């Protein structure tokens, strides 16, 4: 039987490395092709990693919690009789980079950080015996036993965890939330019994509000905190300048009369057994139809050619707690409104739950970003390369309007398209937008 290398796959366009969240198979498990081996956190989402070969998962080289570069060997699938020693050695020795290095270091790092690692070492943690019990452990790191014991009683209630080392008293839940949100517990005053940090203290710190108990000015060092970038925020920080700097953006804005669309939507939403249609669904449908008529907008600069797409795969920007993700609704031009509504809702929900599959995160030919729910009149979005344009959608507002019959009240929505000037010109963007506007103002066109 063949030996199958399990490597860190490229799960999204922008991915450079991936973190193993957890292995769903363990060493010794029999694997079929297509089995889910592990969950991987990429810069965009948490993604399931499939096995491509069959056999036994003989070796896991990158444990859960560690990061590996794309292509790095993270495991080996083989039959029990196969010799994999050379392969495993090559991974450990050769420049597998992040993968092998990361794999070697964690036990040490764990020990140095907190006196409660797994296994035998934990026995030594409470009683600070020298490291003789675990010969591989470095001699110094089982640190600070005196501080651990001494700190709580030495400190008056409510004051002072301070910034020096020493045990921080916090509830397990508070610690968990702090770890998730990147809040440094040493900088927080606890409002629980004996100064214990409890959930509300961490949440107050995380939201930037004042701590639950007002502190005197003595709170040195608490003026700011450095919240480490999450994978997704790091990806956004890396990618957006790659768009805004080299891609010459221009913007075209148009106001759309949404009265008919609003009415139609309300009628559709009274139909029993039909999916609920959102304004965004109408915009997706209208954009898809307009992209078919204006393929120049559904285009991407590829070196010295412009690639014009014949299908409209539309990215839908979804706001998350810690960033933004753009799942792709494929073949929008060929899908009726109801199907768009159902599939878009499903994508958005799974995006929020970080349950998207890798292929749902790439391949958009155009994107839509809608901030309508935030009562935004209009805004302009940054193009998500290699796409050629993105449509920014504002709120549907009731505004005074003047028409032939005089002054009345109407529903209006602002659309702003950001275009890559290397791919298209202002008139092209304007004609596209005009078409979107017409489709939304005569919304029966969205149904035929």
């Amino acid at each position, binding site marked *: 039987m063949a030996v199958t290398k399990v490597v860190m796959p490229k799960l999204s366009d922008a991915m450079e490395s991936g973190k193993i969240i957890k292995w769903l198979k363990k060493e010794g498990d029999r694997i079929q092709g297509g089995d889910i081996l592990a969950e991987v956190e990429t810069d965009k989402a948490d993604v399931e990693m499939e096995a491509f070969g069959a056999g036994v998962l003989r070796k896991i080289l990158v444990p859960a919690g560690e990061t590996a570069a794309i292509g790095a060997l993270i495991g080996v699938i083989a039959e029990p009789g196969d010799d994999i020693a050379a392969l495993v050695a090559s991974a450990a020795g050769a420049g597998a980079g992040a993968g092998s290095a990361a794999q070697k270091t964690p036990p040490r790092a764990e020990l140095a950080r907190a006196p409660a690692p797994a296994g035998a070492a934990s026995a030594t943690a409470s009683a600070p015996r020298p490291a003789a019990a675990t010969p591989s452990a470095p001699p110094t790191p089982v640190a600070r036993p005196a501080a651990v014991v001494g700190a709580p009683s030495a400190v008056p209630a409510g004051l002072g965890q301070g910034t020096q080392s020493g045990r921080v008293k916090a509830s*397990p*839940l508070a610690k968990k939330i702090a770890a998730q949100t990147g809040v440094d517990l040493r900088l927080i005053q606890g409002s629980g019994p004996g100064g214990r940090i409890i*959930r509300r203290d961490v949440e107050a710190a995380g939201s930037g509000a004042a701590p639950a108990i007002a502190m005197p000015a003595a709170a040195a060092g608490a003026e700011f905190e450095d919240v480490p970038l999450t994978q997704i925020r790091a990806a956004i920080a890396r990618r957006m300048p790659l768009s805004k700097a080299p891609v010459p953006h221009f913007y075209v804005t148009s106001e759309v009369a949404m009265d008919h669309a609003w009415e139609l939507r309300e009628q559709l939403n009274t139909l029993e057994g039909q999916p609920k249609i959102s304004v965004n669904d109408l915009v997706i449908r209208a954009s898809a139809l307009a992209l078919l008529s204006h393929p120049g907008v559904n285009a991407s600069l590829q070196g010295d050619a412009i690639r014009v797409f014949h299908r409209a795969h539309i990215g839908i920007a979804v706001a998350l707690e810690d960033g933004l993700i753009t799942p792709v609704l494929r073949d929008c031009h060929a899908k009726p409104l109801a199907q768009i509504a159902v599939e878009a809702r499903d994508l958005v929900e799974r995006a929020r739950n970080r349950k998207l599959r890798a292929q749902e995160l790439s391949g958009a030919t155009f994107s839509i970003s809608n901030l309508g729910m935030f009562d935004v009149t209009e805004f302009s979005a940054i193009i998500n390369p290699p796409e050629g344009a993105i449509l920014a959608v504002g709120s549907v507002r009731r505004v005074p309007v003047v028409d032939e019959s005089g002054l009345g009240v109407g529903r209006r929505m602002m659309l702003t398209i950001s275009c890559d000037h290397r791919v298209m010109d202002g008139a092209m963007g304007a004609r596209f937008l005009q078409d979107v506007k017409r489709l939304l103002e005569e919304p029966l066109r969205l149904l035929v």
Partner: protein
Amino acid sequence: MAVMTYREALNMALREEMHRDPSVFVIGEEVGLYEGAYKVTQGLLKEFGAQRVVDTPIAESGFTGVGIGAAMAGLRPVVEMMTFNFALLALDQIVNSAAKMYYMSGGQFNVPIVIRGPGGPAAQLAAQHSQSMETYFYHVPGLKVVRPTTPMDAKGLLKSSIRDDNPVIFIESETLYNVKGEVPEDPDFLIPLGKAIVRREGTDVTVIAYMGMMYRAMEAAEELEKEGISVELVDPRTLRPMDTETIINSVRKTHRVVVVEAGAGFAGMGSEIAASVTEQAFDDLDAPVERVTGSNAPMPYARNLEKLKTPSKDWIVAAVRRVCNANGS
């Protein structure tokens, strides 16, 4: 649904099961002619005859042994303890025979017996007759232990206990016999053993209690609601096997736990639940698990001292305020 007392619900369960299965019989002191010291077996002698409603001498070890033997031979006895404190006299039969027979006979004999009767503190029954006897039994592998809080639970759980193929300790309460509640008249109505119930939904703290303590906890929840503290009430109903899943799910929601029990706290149900919560939901806790238990003393006879020994609504309210870090602590 009919509204009836806890006592009537138990009586209904016994009558229905005796109709359903001719191997079910009742045995104990004063269960026949006198119709039960607390009238739980009222009317059964008349309806089913002396073969199936058996009066015994005052000899708990003896008639419990008779019940265990009958169960091994294929019958389904329901043994009444006039009060559960008297089960101490039958402890060897229950612990060494009923609980272990299935194991020690290599599965040849199971013991489908129910031992039922009132237990826990009541009103001036003094030290020997006020004990929370469940603590003596739920430690024993092989026994199931049930404590039904409402009339509906009394019926549904007693019927499940009678149909269970293992020995079940079923402890009622003098103070609850006259409590009224809705009870399904359906003879097939059952409540499975080992299933807790959320009696009240809340978001800030989980209070776990059963029997009389659940009623105190309900009063406490009402009062705390006025202070803006939302209490979730969980009633285990079966103490062994314990439905930790329901408890843990609640803890994951509220992040704080108060366990209430009438008996003394040392090695009590509160300790057990606190250990389970710590093991399974440590990272969800925002405060230590707090226990509200009876004081560590024999139950006094004097009414004022009895009150001081037994957890009250106020004790529960104070404990909840502490774990919620609310004022008044």
